[in-house]
């Protein structure tokens, strides 16, 4: 995961060529000059792969941030405060949830030609609806827990209970959703660009695959053209899952404790 982030940050220095620049002859095979060869315009595929990670990662993480943040906030407020606040929030969520996500994104990107950020925003907003639902359910069950009751009995303020008692308890859930969300949005972003609906100025992996498709790379069996972005995607998804698992004990003191006990047993 760290490797991916580093690559995305340092892409401009690492990449041997400008990905849009025509640096060699078309359809070169992999070699010392062009690590993964070139595409049908003669653009360097290795540089495209490196720089493409930027847009893909940004798309995924920005979308996931928006959805996890907004969703958790809404869920905690709605679940904990209850009453009218809850009815208004969940009612709105129910209505918005009926909007199908992918078609909306397709229509938006076809007619409005929006930038990356707007698409992220819309996706995050839609994703936050399910997130809010899940968090609200969790908060509702937490609100009847003895320790929340006890905190109320001590006269602690609602905000204090929400931030110190409820939020840390739902945080692991939020984080897991965040990682899955990131994975989901990256794939969605790649999918959109593969359909040719992304920003043509910005190189990402989906666009690379789109070019393979339209440039006849599949038909010609140019594996050096389509395999690298595919493997990059698989690797990224995999590392996100691993990250999720490895962070679990850090998120929950109970698990951390158990893990310690486990190691001490060894």
């Amino acid at each position: 995961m760290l490797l991916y982030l580093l690559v995305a940050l340092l892409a401009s220095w690492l990449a041997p060529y400008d990905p849009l620049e025509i640096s060699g002859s078309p359809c070169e095979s992999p070699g010392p000059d062009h690590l993964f060869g070139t595409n049908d315009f003669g653009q360097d595929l290795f540089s495209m792969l490196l720089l493409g990670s930027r847009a893909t990662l940004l798309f995924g993480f920005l979308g996931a941030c928006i959805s996890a943040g907004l969703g958790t906030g809404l869920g905690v407020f709605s679940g904990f405060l209850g009453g009218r606040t809850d009815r208004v929030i969940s009612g709105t969520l129910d209505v918005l949830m009926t909007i199908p996500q992918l078609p909306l994104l397709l229509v938006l990107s076809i007619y409005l030609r929006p930038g990356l950020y707007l698409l992220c925003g819309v996706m995050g907003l839609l994703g936050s609806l399910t997130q809010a639902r899940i968090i609200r359910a969790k908060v509702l069950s937490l609100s009847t827990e003895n320790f929340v009751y006890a905190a109320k009995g001590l006269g602690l303020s609602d905000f204090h209970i929400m931030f110190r008692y409820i939020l840390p308890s739902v945080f692991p859930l939020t984080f897991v959703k965040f990682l899955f969300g990131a994975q989901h949005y990256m794939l969605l972003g790649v999918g959109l660009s593969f359909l040719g609906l992304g920003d043509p100025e910005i190189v990402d992996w989906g666009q690379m695959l789109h070019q393979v498709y339209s440039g006849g790379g599949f038909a010609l069996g140019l594996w050096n053209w389509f395999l690298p972005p595919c493997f990059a995607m698989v690797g990224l998804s995999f590392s996100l899952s691993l990250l999720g698992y490895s962070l679990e004990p850090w998120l929950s003191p109970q698990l951390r404790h158990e893990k310690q006990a486990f190691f001490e047993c060894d």
Partner: protein
Amino acid sequence: MELIEIKSLKVTFPTEAGLVRSVDCVDLQLGAREKLGLIGETGSGKSVLAHATLRLLQPDALCEGEILYQGRNLLDCTPTELRRLRGRELALIPQNPSRALNPLQTVGKQLFETLRQAGYSKKEAVAKMPELLRSVGAIDPDSWAKAYPHECSGGMCERIVIALSLAFSPSLLLADEPTKGLDSLNRARIITLLGEVTENRALLFITHDLEAAALLCTRLALMYAGELVELGDKAAVFENPLHPYTRGLLFALPARGMQPIPGRSPPLTALPDGCRFHSRCPEAIARCRSQHPPLFDTGNGHFCRCWLYV
């Protein structure tokens, strides 16, 4: 003036099986430094009474009557007013202390933040924390502060919960079965501790543990099926129990023969006519089956809800 005065309090819960009458016409007074033991079996309405006093019941519970705290009716207070009263004036020591602590924060952090909410500055809170922990019997407050609730034993959790409730130094403590699930040594320690910390405050001690109540309280109130059946000084109740239910409870004590009361308490959705205890009462007369007895004053502040004392 009495610190808290509960006047004909009724708490009902509408359910599918019918109206559950958890607390029915309870009248209680508690003086400024008085310790009252509220005794009853599971489902007799004692915890509901405590939660009603703090207004912590779920929203569908219906409360009627009056709960006057220093002359103010708690049932008329707004949520903000209530929040100011909770903790600062009336504090709850909840049941199941190990589940009453935030599982994701260390004990120290919880205490610190509660103290901060109580209006202490950061410095004061840091200074006050070990003092508070020591006052509930921690020999090494620092190691306690670093522990998570799941690392603490039942007795430790109970002490921490008591420490938390003392953070605001309230004038009335409502202790909801604090000796439940503790071994006899810890139980004795907690009782002593509760006695120490309530030296200058009032205590409503809710329990089914008659002996603990006798050690800690000056007055005892017995509840059965949602209503008070006997109320009086500790000595009077123990030496001269009036209500057959009280006598039954006393005979059920290990020291007095361990004789259980036959039968079980009636469901709160379908309370019997007449006295609610009549089906289990060895001394029931014809009148007990048809007429519901009021609380009779038998003199010297000793009250009893039984037709035997007309």
